[in-house]
């Protein structure tokens, strides 16, 4: 059937269009050439060495880690608390508040960036790590809320009632039942928050000073100014880091299930 063949040809081409760009990056991280082009003359770790020894990149990696973990901690704490609060039906304003918390995902980053720069300068936080963490948390928190709300919604209310009837005080119901059951969602939210912070460029452009340059920010200017295979190596670290985090979450989740059996 030619129609069927055409269908699958389209599917294969589309899948290639979606995936190939992600793959072409990888081998170039190991090129020995000074140029970001194929074919690769020979295999080399020189760009990774550069990444970890050149002070600009070194500092960028350290900054990304500081800001990434700071954002993860702040966004997870705020997001989990808010998701717990939004779980109970708040009279009238619940929907409004939820929409408000989701808005940072929608507002163009450049507009938010300008406002942040004005405000953070005014309250004396300009060019600090805290400023970048705050800015990243604003855009990371919606992911935490979505993911935690999702797992909270999956908890049968009656399971918590059962715990109460069996003698557990509200605090113990939360600690022994609600929190463990929401944990997968909390972990996922934390990973998403970290990934968001890692990838953030636009807000960082506005609120970070030269000492807060993150890896993403450094990649952005490298692509702009002097294209070098170091960006492929950095991208490799990005993808690898995200995969590693995702794997950790998967393993933690799996472990909980295995421990149960």
């Amino acid at each position, binding site marked *: 059937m030619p129609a069927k063949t055409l269908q699958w040809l389209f599917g294969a081409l589309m899948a290639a269009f979606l995936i190939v760009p992600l793959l072409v990056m990888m081998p170039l991280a190991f090129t020995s050439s000074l140029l970001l082009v194929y074919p690769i003359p020979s295999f080399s770790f020189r760009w990774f060495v550069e990444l970890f020894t050149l002070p600009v990149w070194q500092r960028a990696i350290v900054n990304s880690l500081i800001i990434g973990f700071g954002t993860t901690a702040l966004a997870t704490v*705020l997001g989990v608390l808010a998701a*717990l609060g939004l779980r109970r039906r708040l009279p009238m304003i619940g929907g409004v508040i939820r929409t408000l918390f989701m808005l940072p995902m929608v507002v163009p980053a450049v507009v938010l960036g300008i406002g*942040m720069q004005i405000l953070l300068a005014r309250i004396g936080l300009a060019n600090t790590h805290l400023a970048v963490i705050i800015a990243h948390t604003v855009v990371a928190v919606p992911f935490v809320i979505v993911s935690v709300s999702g797992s909270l919604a999956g908890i049968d209310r009656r399971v918590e009632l059962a715990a109460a009837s069996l003698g557990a005080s509200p605090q113990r119901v939360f600690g022994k039942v609600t929190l463990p059951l929401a944990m997968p969602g909390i972990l996922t939210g934390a990973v998403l928050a970290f990934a968001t912070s890692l990838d953030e460029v636009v807000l960082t452009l*506005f609120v970070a000073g030269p000492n807060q340059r993150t890896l*993403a920010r450094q990649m952005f200017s490298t692509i702009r100014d002097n294209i070098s295979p170091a960006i492929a190596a950095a991208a490799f670290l990005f993808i690898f880091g995200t995969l590693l985090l995702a794997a950790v979450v998967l393993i933690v989740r799996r472990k909980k299930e295995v421990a149960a059996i």
Partner: protein
Amino acid sequence: MMSGKSFLQKSGPFLLVAPLFLFICLFFIWPLGSVLTQSVSDNAVARLLPETAKVASSWDGESAPGEDLQAAFVTDLRAATDEQAVGDMVRRLNSAQSGFRTLMSKTLRAVQETPEGLIDLVALDRKWSQPQYWKAITDALSPTTDRYLLAAVDLMRNDAGEIVSQPPEQTINVAIFGRTFWISATVTIFCVLLGYPYALLITVATGWKKQALLAAVLLPLWTSLLVRTAAWFILLQEQGLINSALMDLNIIAGPLALIFNRTGVIIAMTHVSLPMMVLPIYSVLLTIPKNLMPAAASLGAHPLRAFVRVLLPLSFGGIAAGSLLVFMSAIGYYITPALIGGAGDQMISSFIAFHAQNSGNWGMASALGIVLLVVTIILYAVYDRLATQRERSA
């Protein structure tokens, strides 16, 4: 009403939501509010000329300005020591009335050389006898202005205070907004054309094929936007994979121009936005019973007709949601056009960033930002409406 619940239990949800609420108010609402006030505030002049402001109201605005106004102005100039602020003021005045830059540098020099007593400004420069220069100063003393917001859409106030179009040689913003919407619309259309059949294909596929097709959409979504853009940079460049492949296959003789132009921007943005189109359509297609198309066929509808009359209307909600999502995010794009596009492909975000960071024109940057923000919020409101409607009907 009797209730066994304590105060803490009742107020618990509010206490839990409060930290994030405060955080969002402080670091999201307030910044956006700052953008709004910045876009209408105009204190570059008023800040430095407090004495002038006091006597300005006594001037009728048409006759030659009196001695007291000139004296107050000189006093203010003597007190102004912040060079950057003075520079801002001069720039602001010059934009309202050309010729101010040279006039002010002459005047400032005179003020520096004569630290005491009166200065005869008219003797210094004949322009100081012309009311329009003083008018520019007194107009600029007002702390709020709509000039940035008007300029954001290529409008201005003429001397009579009426809103008119800017002279054609100065209109640029409407064209940039037009370009932004045009690029975003093109990307949205490409996403529908590619994304709808793809979503349909995922729906009908089974087994590993379905998993593979789904993974192909989800993997880019989980990958950093920056990495995806960098990847397209590598693919599209002159010695990039696409050009070298096409040349190796002897399809083209010399490299195609794929990067730093519109083609590259649209290809890369379509790739980045495609998952946002496929997933909403897929989730709607999933809810449509599989036997509807066979049912339509059994009732005598040609497959194409059955598609147009049955499947397309039922999945319209997904197309609308996906299109709004893609368009809404596309108009705010900064990274992709900045890295892949040429000078003629920069979208509104780039100009906002340029005004704020390179030329320090925060008023203009904020005004353009407010226009972009309003458009985005309207689109989001429509999207939210659609989503809740679908939720309610489901």
